[in-house]
């Protein structure tokens, strides 16, 4: 899909991106898990509001962190997707939240 021909001057490499939307109180456990799985990196982005099967929430309408969501973005090699996805799925199975996988291309291969 992201053939490197798109960017003839700068080589790009296909990778996978996981977007994990998860409750804030669980975040630390998820990050610890990703650390244990030795993914090369991740970035956490705040969420302001959302709706899912378990109802809707707004950050401004919460006194505590409970119910708040964050989005954890993790770019990694396709070969590693299954071994990361499985424990992440297991951790989240009892929790509120979703996981998506998508294709991306990166420059600077050594980063991933």
């Amino acid at each position, binding site marked *: 899909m992201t053939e490197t021909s798109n960017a003839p001057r700068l080589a790009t490499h296909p990778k996978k991106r996981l977007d994990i939307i998860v*409750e804030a109180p669980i975040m630390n456990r998820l990050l610890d898990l990703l650390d244990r799985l030795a993914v090369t990196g991740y970035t956490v982005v705040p969420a302001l509001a959302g709706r899912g099967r378990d109802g809707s929430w707004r950050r*401004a309408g919460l006194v505590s962190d409970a119910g708040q969501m964050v989005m954890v973005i993790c770019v990694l090699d396709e070969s590693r997707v299954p071994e990361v996805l499985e424990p992440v799925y297991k951790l989240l199975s*009892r*929790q*509120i939240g979703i996981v998506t996988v998508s294709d991306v291309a990166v420059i600077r291969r050594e980063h991933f």
Partner: protein
Amino acid sequence: MLDLVIANLTSPIVLFFALGLAAALARSDLVVPEAVAKALALYLMMSIGFKGGASVAGHGIDARLVGAVIAGALLSFSIPWVAFQILSRTTKLPTLDAAAVAAHYGSISIVTFVAASESVRLSGLVAEGYLVAVAAVMEAPAILTALWLAQKARKKAGTGAEGDEPQGALLREILLNGSIVLLTGAFVIGWITGARGLEIVSPFLVAPFQGVLCLFLLDMGLVAGRGLRAGWRELRGPVLAFGLYMPLVGASLAALVALPLGLSAGGTALLITLAASASYIAVPAAMRLALPEARPAIYLTLSLGVTFPFNLTLGIPLYIALAEALT
């Protein structure tokens, strides 16, 4: 007592709560930014912790302090069990939801405590400073009871939670909860620095306290109103009723325990209030970690949307009157 109720209902604190509630129910876009709401909560913890500690430094410790702390812990451990029994018998809530709700009622609401402290002061009573320490001690035990109830229920149903975190890690997360740490830490600092320390921080932590509380309660009203709008569908009759009578159950248990402690009328009123109040900060966060299947829409709406307003308006005058009758 009617005087007390009226004075309470027309205090700026309660009126700002009502303003927030009304604004949220009317779907106004009035909102207190999340970071600011958290800062206000930090401020309240820091202030009441410090003032409590400084007051203990002034009056010295006695056996009653130790007694009150133990009594608080016992109440926090046992109230969830009572609440769980009631919920199991009177409502159709799933077991884990019932356990989660029970945890909230065993733990405490620090804002209810603060509001009660102001009312106690306005009633011309004085309360022991160490009740702040009792409040801090009462935050966590209820969570443990609820987890034990949930585990028993799971074993019975044969659905042991697979992939659970080790219990030790969970315990650490619960006990090192930010609000417990700050409340306790500020209490200790207030104790160490005493009157000299209080003088230094007083223009920040003491003088503007009630005004800040008004702003905080405006936000609490907004949050409770939004919660009610989103969650009232979840609250069937018996569950809703529980949110109104459970405070009285907790209050009665506390009254029994308070009698032999020899607390002042003000201190008794505060201990009763602690038992009657329900958590909406520390416990919900712990429940997301420990009992994720329990639904926040139920326990948060009940605690914040039903019990908190009840305590703030009618409960506190009642508890003060009860304490005065008892002592």
